[in-house]
Each structure stands twice: as structure tokens, then as C-alpha cells.
């Protein structure tokens, strides 16, 4: 069983590395500029490996550049959410009065269903990458804050905290040197879970048409494919829908495998057990 | 009449760090209505011995030797046959009643299910019997309490419930694993009194590290160290004339004897010392103790010791 965990983790890491490399070196990997227009609705050929879309853009280039957008959104939302969530979680767990307030807010916002609210807000806004990022950030830190807080509550009772206080350690010192390092494994796992959630949610929003039409993420490429009335005719879907869809699937798969491997490594009895978060 | 005879019993766990020899060649026997005490430190393998008798260990563990119970070798029978023995012929009362009871099942039901299964009584009849058992272990208002959940019982009462569960099908042998652990002194003596009544009718193997309890309940005592028995005699002989240095050390560590600890730590069951397993901690260790492993020798009638210098 330990073997399986390691294998899965490695596979996941491998997949993610490939995507990150593609994202970073997009201009060198993509054959064309994704906004450049050629003959529309072309079938795959030697000049356009995945054909062209209804506007005439090369689909392969779209997808390569789309890697940047999709990964960027996921990464930045997760990173900031972790920063905010961990900080608030640490504070909430350590300082009771403030903590109570923070947790009430968290509880309330968590009860409001995420996706409908995001959809509604997004429909009122101009579709853009940064707007989406902001929207996801509203919710991204919540679960992390809660989990970190509850871990801090447990850690506080450990003896070495009292010992440190007795030799004059300040609260900040305790938080920084003693509590934070213990909390890091949880944060890492939460990062991955949030990234997964964002990728799926973002692709969902794009599918609804709420994504950025200029910086086209995989979800948007998929959306335009879906909107095309002849998509099922003559197998157009094979090179226009399948590639972006599969990119999403493999990225999530990679993240899932890594998350699974990490979770079992850190602590088989982790409370934040690996369950899929609903959209 | 010998009820149970254990010969040459070995239980090993393969682990990534090596083989754990939890039970390393044990010979024991228990007669009908006799109470045998198995005493030792935490981690010496006593619970594993109990679990081995019940065949409750995981399939990855290796068990060898023979366990003859009423003429049958328990290690050779099928799982289905063993299941019929568990609870009905041999019952084990596990440690820690708080976690050993199902929190979402009523207490009466937990006692009744074994009765229903083994004795084929109807649901109603087995419930009646369960209430009788609760009464037998002196739980007040048993019919009412049978409908309650474990968290509504105090520690001592939970222990009684465990005993009631063990007695439910009238087994010939009860294995009690640390029945008084964690209980206060007054509750402890109540449980001991209860157990004393229980053993009037049946045999018991009591696993404990509490010498006081052992003295009160046991006819014979076996001391276990690092997976093997080091001394085995009647209770009187153990307390009055202990022969093995470990036994002496153990007795010496009692409060009334001065609370003198045995120096050193018990060995890991993976890397056992060569020769006598106790020699690193023994004040009388001689050269031979480091090299040769002593066998169990019957020094006097019924008094066995594993030491070159007894």
C-alpha cells in the first residue's frame, strides 16, 4: 500500500511538472499566436495540429497559452488563500476573542452556497481574469482558516507551549516558531485541494460563459467549442473539445494524486480527509 | 482437569524494522476453575498472548505451537469453528471499557447479541438474559440501564458491563485483560470482589501488572518478560519466595516494599539481548548469562524458573 501511494504521488508530480513547463515556456511551445486568425473551422492538418476554431485561431496554440491562464488563476488564488487563511486561522486559534468573531464570519459565509453566489456576482461583472480571481478569493480562505484554527486549538494545549511562555517567549514567537511549523502539512494539503477546486470551478464558470474572452483558459476554449452549433457534426469535438477537457482532467488528476500521496504521508488520521469539495 | 494447555506458542509480527517476537515459546496450562495470573510490564507481550489464544490477530502475524482446549487444538480449526468457541467457550474481556463498547448501541443489546448468536435464543429472551447478566454484575436497575448507551455509565460500571458481556454465554474460560486499569481504589476492590465470584464457576486467565489484584484473585501466577515466561508458580510461592531476579525486582518495586525500581528498560522485541533476556538489568548477571539462553526449569514441585542461578 505504501508503494501505491508513492507511485501515485510521482505520477501526479510528473503530470503537474509537464503542465507547469508548458505554461512557463508557452511562447516557445505554441506554434502560433493564439489570437492570430487563419481559415476558420479547419480540420487538423500539418499546419494546424488541432485545427482552427470558429474565428480562425489555432486551437493548439490556444490550449498552450490557456495553460498559463488556468494554472495562473489556480495558483494565485490558492497561494493567497493559504496566506490569508493560515494567518487568520493562527490568530483565531490563538486569541480567543478575535477568534470567535472570525469564526462566526467564516461560518456564515461558508453556509452561503458558493457557486450560485459566484455565478450571480460574475454575471453582474465584466468578465475578466482578475475579477474571477477576486471572486474565488472571497471564498478560498474560509476552509483553511477553520482547519488551521482547530489545529492551533489542539497545539496550544501542548506542554512545550507553556514551557516557552515560562521562559518568556512572546505570543508571536510561539506562533512563529512552534505552532506554524506544525501546521504546515495541513496547509500544503489545503493548497492542493483549493487548487483543484479553483480549476474545476473556473472551468465551470467559463462553460457558462462567464470567463475571460481574451485570456482564454481551457474552460473558455471548451465553452466556445460547446457554443458552436456544428460541434457534434463531423467530429469537430474531437480536436476542439477533447483537448482542453483532457487538460483540465489531467491537471486535476495530477493534483489529486499528489494530494492523496501527501495526505497519507503526513498523517493517516488527518481530519481534513481527502474528500471532494462540491462546487 | 486441564482445561487449556499451551505448548511452545510463538507469535511473530513481521514489520519493516524486523520481526517482533511478541510471544516467544510459551508453555502454560490452566485447570478448570483455576485462576492464572499473567503478570508483566507494558509491552512484554501479555495482551498479544491473550489475543493469540482467541485468534484475534491479523492474518499477517505468524503463530506456531499448539493450544489444546478441551482436547482440540485451537490453532488448527477453521475460522468458523473458532467463532463458535469465542464468546461461548472462551470469552475475552478487552482492555479499556470506554473504547471497547460501541457508542451507538444500547448496552443491553451489546450483551444480548452474543447470547442470541451462540445460544439461539429469541430477541426477547436474549434481552431478558442480558438484564440478568447486568444484575449478576451488580448494576442497579438493570432493566432500565440495559436500554442506555455506554456513555451514560461510569468507568467502573462500564467495566462491569464488559464482564457481563464476557459471562453472557457462560464460558468455561475467561481471559480478562487489565480489568482494573484506570479505576480508583474503591472501585477496583469492588471489581476484584466481583471477579472472585465469577471465578468460582469457571477458569480465568487474568492479564495484569497490578500485583495486588493478582494476589487477591490468582491461584497461580506466571511472570512474563520480553515475550517469554521467567517464573511460574503458585501465588504463595511467588510472593513469599520469588526465585527470578525479575520477580524479585517487580515485588521490590511495590510501594510497601520501598518502591525500588528495576534499573534499565525492557528490551525491544525486535532486537533481543543475547543469552538471558534479563541479564542487562540483572544485578547477579554472570558470564554465562550473557552467552547462553536459560531454559525453564522446575526447581521445586510446580515452581518453574528461567534462570541459571535460581
Amino acid at each position: 500500500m505504501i508503494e501505491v501511494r508513492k507511485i501515485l504521488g510521482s505520477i501526479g508530480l510528473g503530470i503537474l511538472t509537464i503542465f507547469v513547463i508548458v505554461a512557463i515556456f508557452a511562447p516557445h511551445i505554441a506554434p502560433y499566436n493564439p489570437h492570430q486568425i487563419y481559415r476558420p473551422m479547419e480540420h487538423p492538418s500539418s499546419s494546424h495540429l488541432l485545427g482552427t476554431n470558429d474565428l480562425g485561431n489555432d486551437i493548439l496554440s490556444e490550449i498552450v497559452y490557456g495553460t498559463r491562464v488556468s494554472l495562473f488563476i489556480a495558483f494565485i488564488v490558492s497561494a493567497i488563500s493559504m496566506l490569508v487563511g493560515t494567518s487568520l486561522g493562527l490568530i483565531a486559534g490563538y486569541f480567543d476573542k478575535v477568534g470567535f468573531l472570525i469564526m462566526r464570519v467564516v461560518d456564515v459565509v461558508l453556509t452561503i452556497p458558493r457557486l450560485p453566489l459566484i455565478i450571480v456576482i460574475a454575471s453582474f461583472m465584466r468578465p475578466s481574469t482578475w475579477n474571477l480571481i477576486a471572486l474565488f478569493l472571497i471564498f478560498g480562505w474560509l476552509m483553511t482558516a477553520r482547519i488551521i484554527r482547530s489545529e492551533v486549538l489542539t497545539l496550544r494545549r501542548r506542554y512545550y507551549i507553556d514551557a516557552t511562555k515560562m521562559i518568556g517567549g512572546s505570543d508571536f514567537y510561539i506562533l512563529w516558531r512552534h505552532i506554524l511549523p506544525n501546521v504546515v502539512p495541513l496547509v500544503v494539503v489545503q493548497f492542493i485541494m483549493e487548487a483543484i477546486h479553483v480549476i474545476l470551478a473556473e472551468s465551470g464558470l467559463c462553460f457558462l460563459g462567464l470567463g475571460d474572452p481574451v485570456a482564454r483558459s481551457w474552460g473558455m476554449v471548451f465553452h466556445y467549442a460547446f457554443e458552436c452549433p456544428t460541434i457534434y457534426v463531423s467530429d469537430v469535438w474531437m480536436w476542439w473539445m477533447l483537448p482542453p477537457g483532457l487538460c483540465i482532467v489531467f491537471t486535476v488528476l495530477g493534483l489529486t494524486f499528489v494530494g492523496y500521496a501527501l495526505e497519507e504521508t503526513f498523517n493517516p488520521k488527518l481530519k481534513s480527509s481527502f474528500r471532494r469539495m462540491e462546487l | 482437569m486441564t482445561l487449556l494447555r499451551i505448548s511452545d506458542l510463538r507469535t511473530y509480527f513481521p514489520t519493516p524494522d524486523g520481526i517482533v517476537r511478541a510471544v516467544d515459546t510459551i508453555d502454560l496450562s490452566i485447570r478448570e476453575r483455576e485462576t492464572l495470573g499473567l503478570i508483566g510490564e507494558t509491552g512484554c507481550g501479555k495482551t498479544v498472548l491473550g489475543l493469540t489464544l482467541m485468534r484475534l490477530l491479523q492474518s499477517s502475524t505468524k503463530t506456531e505451537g499448539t493450544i489444546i482446549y478441551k482436547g482440540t487444538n485451537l490453532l488448527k480449526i477453521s475460522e468458523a469453528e473458532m467463532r463458535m468457541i469465542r464468546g461461548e467457550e472462551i470469552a475475552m474481556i478487552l482492555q479499556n471499557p470506554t473504547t471497547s463498547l460501541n457508542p451507538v448501541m444500547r448496552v443491553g443489546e451489546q450483551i444480548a447479541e452474543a447470547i442470541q448468536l451462540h445460544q439461539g435464543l429469541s430477541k426477547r429472551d436474549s434481552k431478558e438474559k442480558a438484564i440478568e447478566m447486568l444484575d449478576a454484575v451488580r448494576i442497579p436497575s438493570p432493566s432500565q440501564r440495559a436500554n442506555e448507551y455506554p456513555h451514560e455509565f461510569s468507568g467502573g460500571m462500564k467495566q462491569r458491563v464488559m464482564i457481563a458481556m464476557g459471562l453472557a454465554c457462560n464460558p468455561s474460560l475467561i481471559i480478562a485483560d487489565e480489568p482494573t486499569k484506570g479505576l480508583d481504589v474503591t472501585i477496583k476492590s469492588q471489581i476484584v470482589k466481583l471477579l472472585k465470584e465469577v471465578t468460582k464457576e469457571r477458569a480465568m486467565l487474568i492479564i495484569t501488572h497490578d500485583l495486588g489484584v493478582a494476589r487477591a484473585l490468582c491461584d497461580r501466577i506466571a511472570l512474563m518478560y520480553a515475550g517469554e515466561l521467567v517464573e511460574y508458580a503458585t501465588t504463595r510461592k511467588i510472593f513469599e519466595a520469588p526465585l527470578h531476579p525479575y520477580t524479585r525486582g517487580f515485588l521490590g518495586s511495590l510501594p510497601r516494599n520501598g518502591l525500588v525500581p528495576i534499573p534499565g528498560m525492557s528490551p525491544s522485541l525486535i532486537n533481543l539481548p543475547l543469552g538471558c533476556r534479563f541479564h542487562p538489568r540483572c544485578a547477579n548477571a554472570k558470564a554465562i548469562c550473557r552467552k547462553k539462553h536459560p531454559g525453564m526449569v522446575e526447581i521445586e514441585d510446580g515452581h518453574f524458573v528461567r534462570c541459571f542461578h535460581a
Partner: protein
Amino acid sequence: MHQISKLAYYFVIVLIILSINFFLPRVMPGDALSYLTDPGADMPVRMTEEKGEILLAYYGLDKPLSEQYINYMVGIIRGDLGLSIYYNDPVLEVILSRMKWTLLLVGTSTAIYITLGILLGATSAWARGRKKDMALLISILSISSFPSFFIGILMVIFFVVKLGIFPLSGAQTAFATYSNPLEEIFDILHHLVLPAATLIISHIGGTYFLMRNSMLGVLGEDYIMTARAKGLSERYILHKHAIKNALLPIVTMTAMTAGFMVTGTIFVEMVYAYPGIGNLLYNAVSYNDYPLLQGIFLFITITIVGANFIADMIYIRLDPRVNHE
């Protein structure tokens, strides 16, 4: 006592949601209405002066804010959710007419995926580490990486386009007349299979993992050993001792998930053009039908909050330990 504080808590949440709904269009950059009447805006539905007036009246933007708020709240209580721009009918009516399909879809899918998830999760936990467990685990992990709409589309491509054994869209065949009710039922079921299958596949992961983890936790508990020591069979222990304990967290999650299912159906209904609330939401978004959008949001949110509340109530009833705090 628990019940009352929970009730108050959820009431507050509903109030907050209603307020969000109220402030949202008023807070967005620019006047929400200029969005619609601006001829430069990319919109499939052109706004006439008339429609503009209706919207203005609906939002009551000419009156002071506090009055607007009160009117809004009163309207909600009376069930007036405004007029849909696209459908030209009261929002509430539009929503209610679609609700039955979503209920059908969500209802059948939830029942099936939860049962399957529990069974598979328990099987996995019971066979921990062995081939069955690993195979199940990896398969379900992989399937869970697919966005629900992608699964839907793949199913459409395979079963509708390629094999032609299922219909492409709708809840019933359009303009169909039936000679007997059985025919109608069969037609509905025929249209239900793929959407339900899509929902089931996309949601089974959650329940599976939760059940598996929960079971693993339970199987490691001492009282399972006690049960074995009593000579009970493995099967009996699984059913009477393990599953009941493992099921507790599932119950809570289920009721919560039932709420989330409504949002999950958005994508599925879109792919299959299934005339439920999810599809309605999509249309509302596409046509910038703000009153309808808000109405649906309200509707969905209150449903989910309601589901959460019920989940809490059920859990309190189920776990005997909770009552004694």
C-alpha cells in the same frame, strides 16, 4: 435548545442572503441598468424603453434606499420575486414550473449515488490495501477529476451521437402525444438516464471517500475487536457495528450535498438542455435577465440553507452522544 439556536442562526443567514441579493445590483460598478440599455453592450436581448421602465420600477431605483429595502423584503414575503425579462412572466412562476424536473433529476441521482457511494466506500474500507480497494480508489479518484459538464458531453457524444440510443435533450420528447401514461413515464425515464448518470458519476467520489475514511476509522476502533471476541461473524460486525457508526458523518454530508446538488445540476442541465432550474439559471445568465437571476439565486440558497438545517436536525437525532451535552 439546540434546535432554537440553530433556527435563529439559519434565519440570520437567510436575512444576510436576502440583503446580498438586494445590494448586489446596486453595488456593482456603474448603474446596473445602464449595462442593459447601453447600445454598445454585447447582448442578445435588446432593451426597449418599456422594459427599461419595468426594471426601474422593479428595482425602485427612484425611491430612497431604505424604502427600496423595505419594499424588497415585503415583496419577498409576499412571494413577489419580480418579472423575468426574457420570459415575461413572474419570476416565481417561471422557477416553480421548472422545479419539478430538477427535483426529479436531483432526487433520483442523489438516492443512487449515495447508495452506491456508501456500498463502494464500505467495500473499499473492508478490503483495505488489497487489490479491490486500490482498484476502486484509483478509478474513483480518476473519475472525480472530470468536470461534470465534460462527463456529460462525453456521454452525449458516445451514447447519443455515436450510438443513438438516448435522446439529446429535454425531459420529454417535444410535442409528443402519449396513448397511455406508461408511455409517458417511459419517455421521461428515457430522457432521464443520461443526465442522471452524469450527475451520479460526478458526485459519487465525495460520498465514496467519506464513507471509506469513516469506515477505516471505525474498523480501527476497539469495540470492533470486542465484537470479534464475542464470536460474531465478520458480516454481522460489518452491518451491525461498523456501518452504523461509519454512517454518522455521511448523514450530515448528505443533507448538505443535497443542497449542493442543485448547483451541480446547472452544468448537467445545460449539457442536456434539461428544463430544470439549472438550465434556467444558464439562460438567465446568458440573457442578463437580472430579476430571474436573483430569483433563482434566492431560491437555490434558501433550499441549501434549508437542507443544512435538516441535516443538523437529523444528526442530533442520530447520535445519542450529542443529546447529553
